[in-house]
């Protein structure tokens, strides 16, 4: 601050102080505008990365293809079809609920094992070991004319495995 400012400060804002404050306000306004511009520009792109083809209902195959107690990967729907020992069907998302890695089915261990942070999930998608916070998401399963059909439009979140989540014949 210059001498002029202190001389005027006692009774009124000096010319220089006034302009300095004006520039500061205008500068901050410009910064805020650019920030707003940037964010709205980015936010408008939030719908860009839609999947190229809308995945709807996927035909997984005939009932007889899936033995009880097995897991089958269905690549076109990006999910696993698990058949529970009691014969129920469960379509499990292949995305780990912790941080989004894809979890392969380990036949020997009888579990889904996440390679990123070591979470493991049971046949029903329940968390066996952390750090995953909740079971694997599921997709609705329908059985029509002996065919297993899975609706891949939207994954369902759940807190635990319940018997009614599985679709039975």
């Amino acid at each position, binding site marked *: 601050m210059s001498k002029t400012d202190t001389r005027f400060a006692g009774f009124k804002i000096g010319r220089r102080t006034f302009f300095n404050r004006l520039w500061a306000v205008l500068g901050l306004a410009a910064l805020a505008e650019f920030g707003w511009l940037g964010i709205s520009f980015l*936010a408008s792109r939030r719908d*860009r*990365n839609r999947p190229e083809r809308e995945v709807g209902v996927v035909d997984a195959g005939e009932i007889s293809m899936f033995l009880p107690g097995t897991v089958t990967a269905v690549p076109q729907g990006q999910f696993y079809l698990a058949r529970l020992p009691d014969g129920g069907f469960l379509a499990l998302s*292949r995305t780990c609920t912790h941080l989004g890695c894809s979890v*392969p089915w380990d036949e020997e261990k009888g579990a889904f094992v996440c390679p*990123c942070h070591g979470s493991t999930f049971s046949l029903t998608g329940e968390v066996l*070991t*952390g*750090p*995953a916070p909740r079971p694997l998401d599921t997709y609705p399963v329908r059985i029509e004319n002996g065919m297993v059909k899975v609706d891949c439009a939207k994954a369902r979140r759940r807190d635990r495995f319940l018997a009614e989540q599985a679709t039975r014949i």
Partner: protein
Amino acid sequence: MKASRQSITDFILHLHPRTVPYPTIRFRLSWGLGGMAVVLTGLLFLTGALLLLAYRPTLEEAYGSVRALGRDIPLGYWVRNIHHASANLLAVVVVLHLLRTALTGAFGPGRRLNWTIGLGLLVLVLAANFTGYLLPWDQLAYWAVTVSMAALGYIPLCGDWLRGVIQGGPEIGQATLSNFYVLHVAVIPGSLLVLLLWHFWLVRRAGGLISASEGGEPIRRIPVVPNLIAREAAVGLSLVAFVLFLAMFWNAPLLEQANPGMSPNPTKAPWYFQGLQELLLHLHPVFAAFVWPFLGGAALLLLPLIPGSALPGGVWFGSERGRGLAAWAAGGGALLAVAAVLADNALRQPGVGMAAGALIARGIVPTSAVILLAAGGYWLLVKAANRTRAEAVMAGLVAGFAILTVLTVVGVFFRGAEMHLVWPWHGTGGSL
């Protein structure tokens, strides 16, 4: 000729004071770390400009254009390696530079703003490293972006929105790549340049590096040109030679092209985020991805505002006695980190998930324990051992960095398939 040489000298004196305190040109005060960071940044700008000529930021071409560097462009891979080596060394150098600043008491009055700007630069360097990591669009890149975007989603209230904005949609794709590309080649380098110049100028205004007074005598000052400039040139040119040599042998990694259906096993973050990834194994994601980094960042930011938190300037650890304390703090922090990792590994047996009550058991409890431990340690040092506040703060900082270093080393070398603890000389080896 004379006039042009004068103009160079004058330009240097825009960034440096005309004279600096004699003790500050001693190599062992600063280890030349700030200068090294500048040189590495320069190498990154130069090689980055060359790489821009070859790289194409589209999903179809990104991977191929990085591959083609090795095949079609003379010395193309060397340029990429120099860029890669400089970026990794820069991450190390800036952290060491931050530690040097703190441990020689250079964030006190007169240098507070510059500490804050330095932290901003650290964030920009890490952001630059990370955004660049994703551009080759190989498996390493794709899964790093997947994990980091999912981690972003755990930020309370605005996480999902933020993730959508940065990701450019509900899935990772072209918009994500474009966003990271623009950040990496325009936004971050531009901001970096502005903050760097401000950073230098504030050092100049503070009269050069911090120095200790020489026993009541006035500090002897010597001209910057040529004394300081010669030393800077020696450090800078040796470093350039070292990096160029290193880049002949140290290849920047390039895995297979990104495959959204299959994560590599193990999937690891870049090494400078391995400490964070290690936390993600032990803590609830909200705490590992948000609360702890936030608390750590806030502590560093507020450090200079606490009265009496800065050590006496210009002497490492403040004094000989302070050096002993720092050694104890580093050892204690490292032991604590090893013990915590091993104990949690023993506890995390099958059947122990993260679902039930995890927010308390793996969030609030360990966080409170760490805060209590820090407060107890501070009380012991200041009240019981009669240390100064600055020494206690220094001990906390050293312990914190020791913990982060141990977590990083564990993450990089001791985590194998499915992130189980392994001996590095037995296992399949990690990714760097």
